């Protein structure tokens, strides 16, 4: 019988709700929660020997430590497979499922599997390296996702060839693979044309990727009277991170008042970005959000005025769809505040 370790968060691991989200990684014998249903699907072929449980916040806030502990637990058990979730559309949990699967796969070279809602940031991040079964948006779809997970888990355990996403139920990994067809390309093309002419549904073989070409705005004509804003995806926020912007895959952005401030000092500002060495930004937050330089130029009359707030988010594995939404909202806010230009700093 092949041995599987299952990864769950504090909720599905039956520790408790959000109040237990700081739970450090622990291990329990046998299947728990969704693992029980999964075990029944694996029948006699495989056994969930243990379940690792970690709180969502603990994983998000202490990813390195959490991962280290989880990998150590796996190392003790040496299973033949790791299954995580399903994480549905839970952001922190989904990221944890993907991260754990990816790390286990690369460290132990064993098959891994999770199940997430396709728009879960964890799916976007890890679909290329981890088989992620397409899960419904919430746990109400638990019964729906389980059979596909069980089936794919067994195939992976047996080392069988994995079919295409439509057949196996996983989220497309984004690889275009050559396959032989019954009809030649010309006949398929004429078939498609006839359908298109008749107004019947057809499926293109190559959806056009969207090239997101941003046309730069024309240069400012009157810099002397321009109101300019600072925007950063480098995660510079007031100490304490009042809006709780996440360190990765941020779900929001903040707007912070800098009226009368000459520069950002380390006692009042910090970075919450989880994707770069924070030491230098922590020492001097102006390195990421150059308020000091902007004030100097402002004093010299280099431009009209600096807008008295700045916009900040964390551009670390942030889904493009989210980033686009932030940009649209920030742009609207800038228009309302009659700002003519912005300087965007990344990391």
């Amino acid at each position: 019988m092949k041995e599987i370790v299952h990864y769950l968060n504090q909720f599905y691991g039956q520790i408790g709700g959000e109040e237990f989200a700081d739970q450090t990684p622990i291990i329990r014998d046998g299947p728990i929660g969704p693992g029980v249903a999964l075990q029944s699907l694996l029948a006699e072929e495989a056994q969930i020997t243990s379940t690792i449980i970690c709180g969502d916040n603990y994983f998000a806030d202490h990813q390195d430590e959490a991962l280290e502990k989880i990998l150590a637990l796996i190392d003790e058990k040496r299973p033949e497979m790791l299954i995580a979730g399903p994480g549905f559309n839970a952001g922190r949990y989904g990221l944890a499922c993907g991260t754990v699967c990816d790390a286990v796969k690369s460290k132990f070279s064993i098959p891994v599997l999770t199940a997430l809602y396709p728009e879960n940031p964890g799916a976007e991040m890890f679909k290329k390296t981890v088989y992620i079964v397409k899960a419904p948006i919430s746990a109400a779809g638990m019964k729906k996702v389980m059979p596909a997970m069980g089936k794919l888990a067994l195939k992976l355990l047996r080392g069988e060839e994995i079919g295409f996403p439509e057949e196996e139920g996983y989220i497309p990994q984004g690889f275009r693979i050559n396959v032989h067809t019954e009809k030649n390309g010309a006949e398929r093309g004429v078939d498609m044309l006839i359908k298109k002419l008749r107004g019947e549904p057809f499926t293109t073989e190559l959806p056009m990727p969207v090239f997101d070409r941003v046309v730069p705005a024309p240069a400012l004509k009157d810099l002397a009277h321009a109101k300019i804003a600072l925007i950063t995806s480098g995660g510079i926020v007031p100490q304490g991170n009042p809006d709780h912007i996440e360190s990765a895959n941020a779900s929001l952005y903040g707007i912070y008042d800098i009226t009368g401030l000459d520069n950002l000092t380390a006692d009042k500002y910090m970075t919450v970005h989880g994707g770069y060495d924070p030491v230098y930004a922590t020492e001097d937050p102006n390195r990421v959000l150059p308020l000091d330089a902007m004030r100097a130029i402002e004093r010299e009359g280099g431009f009209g005025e600096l807008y008295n707030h700045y916009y900040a988010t964390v551009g670390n594995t942030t889904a493009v769809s989210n980033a686009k939404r932030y940009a649209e909202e920030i742009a609207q806010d800038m228009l309302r505040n009659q700002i003519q230009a912005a300087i965007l700093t990344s990391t």
Partner: protein
Amino acid sequence: MELIDKTKEETMKLTLNKFHVKDIRFAEQSSFANGILYIDKKDLAAYLMEDSNIQSVDFDIARPGESVRIVPIKDVIQPRYKKSGSGQIFPGYVGDVETVGNGETNVLEECCVATSGKIVAFQEGIIDMCGLGAEFNSFSKMNILVPLIQPIDGIDKHTHEATVRIAGLKTAAYMAKLSLALAPDEVETFEHESILEMGAKYPDLPKVVYVDMVQCQGLMHDTYIYGLNVKGILSTLIGPLEVLDGAIVSGNCAAPGHKNATIHHENNPIIMDLLRRHGKELCFVGVLLSNESAMLKEKMRAAYYTSNLSALLGVDGMIISEEGGGNPETDLMLNCRFHEQRGIKTVLVTDEYCGRDGASQGLADVTPEADAVITNGNGNQFVVLPKMDRVIGDIETARVITGGNANSIGADGTLSVEIAAIMGSCCEMGYERMTTRLR
């Protein structure tokens, strides 16, 4: 007084007399009997050596399933010869410039010519007759005569290319001519009315044209119509039956995986399929040649004028095939956009270069109107082809051709290449049976 001559022939008719070739053998005298094509090397060599740019020529034969690799290959041509009708096959080369596309044409099936010899440029390809490589094209299932052409010393590359191109066409014509006195194994007749006639005949069928994009970007990238280089032509209209008689000839290699060889033109699968459905599911008006220059202004001119011709003809829809990749994607997308903007529905036929793992963006240009696209595969797929017992040509060239690299030739005789190196693997006329799927 009768103003209309009702007896005037309004329909073009071309009959393909098909002969299945079971084998090619060298013999004392050239002939074709019981499906066996016998070739007198000396006689054929003497015919080809009429071109004073050829210093010497030898021939080799590759058969389906044999452990044989041919490299480098410039063009692949199907043997055809006209038995009746106006003009002769490959007008401008074998035939004079008289219009072709009617009468009877003898065709040797399961048989082709693959021109080889000293390499002209790195856009030359590979055919493997067995193993993994054989799965990527139809040529591996054919009996192949390979002329190995050695040009005279000091020949310039353009003349070298033309010499080999013409020798290939002459070889193909020579072979099919041997069948003239014989009864074919199979006959297929295509009929195609004049445009006004078909408009009256099929008022309720959608009017469709085929836009055949042909490359004209210089050495190993040129295409010829009735012997004329398409470089500099304004988009033009040509009858589909003319193409089947070799009116379009490839001087072109692009990447071997997605160049349109002469055999692809002769058997243009889009034309063949449209002809077979003509009068039933659609009304196939004709073929528009839209050239692919390297210059943006010329790309614009070609696409604008092709869309103008489409509008003059009053068509409802079209299939557009690309040749090559990279900058020709701009021609493809411009043709798509300009036609869709005129309300003419388009289907595009292309291939992709989306990296060895298939994860990258596979086209160099896109347009949102391109909502109906056929892909014939990812040319970046990396394959290790097994050792072959015999190589026709020069295996060393595999290191320099498209899809190959300095380390392509393994010590064990294997050949590691991207399938772009395999002749016709991702043919953008949809000649083969391959596509990509997202996983």
